[in-house]
């Protein structure tokens, strides 16, 4: 208790110096803590984003821009290799083309349903024809909100037996706008194709969907221009992408992942994590150096006192403990002040992203300062141990 009281009084005696060191440490710690919180927030957000991004991978011909790209396709022989890739839960090839037949099809608005009015149809535009593998029971379509499931509102979806049949399912809005129903036929290059089902995705339902083999035959395009792969795990997406690249190089195909689609979000967060981690290391290192330097300067200033104490019988251990307690008390005071500063720095937006302050930030501050105090004490304590009272007092 005596040594604790004496250490505390020593700090109070040199109030100006103590306050200066505490404030300096608190600023360093506050910066470090705010970066720590930023790091934690960014990592959490990245995890949340990654979870939402999903496992989808889209492969298209290089430079592909949808219907405007004409007849660009990826060859079927290469596509077949995708089915053998590891970590792939689903491969869905599709072939998108524009309707080319002798029927003036009108696109319908998404608001139409089977019971709604037909007079709201929009003027003639390109109607997309999508060839899908009929053996995939729940195909995915890509829309403005990401992947969409096809829901049958009338009729049936394809079965594997329909792979080479001249059948189709059509979007609900298209059906209404053109008075089409189950059993209706539409001409494609002189080939009548029958409607066996009407679907809805809630958004994009102006398309004609047929078995991919039919589209390939009708349009003489032996391949696909859009392949959706689903990885078995979000952590395997990059591995699958690398494997895809062994089949299609960058001159042949574009490979898009959900990560690259949301690239700006991802890169901002990754940058925030990286920057905050570096910042944290730097500020905590500076904090440790400040503690070491402060201790060392105090010790040099009190060298005579150390010599006297040793001369009158104080053990090295006791002197070291005294300085150690002084350091710890300063560090604890800095932890309190540093926590407050970290909250201010975060609230004032000094960190790069909207950072959430965790309730245990104070405990983190205490923990960090105790560890830094211990580490930073090593050199000064080693120095105290080597002080010779005879030499010190002779030089004084």
């Amino acid at each position, binding site marked *: 208790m005596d040594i604790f009281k004496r250490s505390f009084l020593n700090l109070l005696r040199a109030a100006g110096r103590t306050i200066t060191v505490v404030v300096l440490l608190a600023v360093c710690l506050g910066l470090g803590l705010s970066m720590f919180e930023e790091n934690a927030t960014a990592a959490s957000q990245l995890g949340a984003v990654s979870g939402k991004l999903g496992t989808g991978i889209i492969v298209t011909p290089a430079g592909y821009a949808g219907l405007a790209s004409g007849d660009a396709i990826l060859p079927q022989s290469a596509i077949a290799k995708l089915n053998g890739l590891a970590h792939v839960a689903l491969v869905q090839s599709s072939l998108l083309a524009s309707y080319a037949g002798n029927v003036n099809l009108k696109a319908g608005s998404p608001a139409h349903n089977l019971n709604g009015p037909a007079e709201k149809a929009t003027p003639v535009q390109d109607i997309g024809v999508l060839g899908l593998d009929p053996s995939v029971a729940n195909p995915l379509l890509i829309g403005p909100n990401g992947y969409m499931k096809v829901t049958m509102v009338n009729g049936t979806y394809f079965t594997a037996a329909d792979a080479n049949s001249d059948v189709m399912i059509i979007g609900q809005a298209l059906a209404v706008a053109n008075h089409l129903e189950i059993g209706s036929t539409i001409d494609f290059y002189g080939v009548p194709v029958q409607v066996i089902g009407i679907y809805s995705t809630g958004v994009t339902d102006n398309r004609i969907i047929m078995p991919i083999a039919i589209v390939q035959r009708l349009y003489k395009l032996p391949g696909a221009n859009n392949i959706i792969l689903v990885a078995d795990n979000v952590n395997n997406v990059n591995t699958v992408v690398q494997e895809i690249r062994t089949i299609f190089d960058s001159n042949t195909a574009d490979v898009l992942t959900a990560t690259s689609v949301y690239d700006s979000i991802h890169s901002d967060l990754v940058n925030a994590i990286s920057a905050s981690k570096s910042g944290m290391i730097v500020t905590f290192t500076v904090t440790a150096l400040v503690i070491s330097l402060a201790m060392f300067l105090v010790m040099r200033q009190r060298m005579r006192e150390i010599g006297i104490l040793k001369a009158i*019988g104080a053990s090295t251990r006791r002197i070291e403990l005294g300085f150690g307690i002084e350091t710890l008390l300063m560090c604890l005071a800095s932890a309190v002040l540093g926590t407050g500063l970290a909250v201010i720095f975060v609230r004032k937006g000094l960190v790069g992203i909207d950072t959430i302050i965790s309730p245990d930030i104070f405990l983190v501050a205490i923990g960090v300062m105790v560890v830094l105090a211990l580490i930073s004490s090593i050199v000064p304590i080693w120095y105290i141990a080597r002080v*010779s009272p*005879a030499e010190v007092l002779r030089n004084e």
Partner: protein
Amino acid sequence: MNEEPIVVAHDLSRYYQTREVLVEALNGVNLRFQKGRMIAIRGASGSGKTTLLNLIGALDRPSSGSLVVDDIDVARIHGRDEVNYRLHKVGFVFQSYYLIPHLTALENIILPMELCGVNTEKRKIRACELLQRVGLEKTHGSRKPSHLSGGEQQRVAIARALANNPSIIIADEPTGNLDTRTGTLIIDLLYSLTEEGRTVIVATHSAEVAAKADMVLEMVDGHLLNPVEV
């Protein structure tokens, strides 16, 4: 007076290696000090007086030779034994007093007792007694060293040296920073400690101080001119 020797040194030497030369601070010193005596070690600056005192007080370690103080082989003690020796066996008085400036006189006197773990109340009582013993008033106890005269500071230093009741008092030029009259008073105070059975070893270059001692040893260039036996 007790005739038993309290300090025995045989062929005691201390060397310091500087960059260019080997400095012989002490060279082959032989001596015996009796208990309860005041011994003055006289010599010019650099003669080795302080080195000898530092060795006896275990503030330094000899390069060779033996040194036994009150049956303790001081040349070989270290660690806890060394600390206990300085706490209990010897008390130091320095030319520059070396009081802790931010402690009061009383707190300076209490310090060695605090290091020993003496009860708070007991050490306060003893400190007050020692203050009186060295001729100071109670009011001096609450003053910091900067508010005391040189003589008063040296008295406080002597009181501090006596805190743990050591058998040896080592005083290195205790009157060096004092005027003649005050210096005389201090030497008289130190001599009075021998009446309590303590051995007082004083390093000085003053003939007047040496004249008050029971025994005077002359040191020149690390050697004792008039060794040894009392």
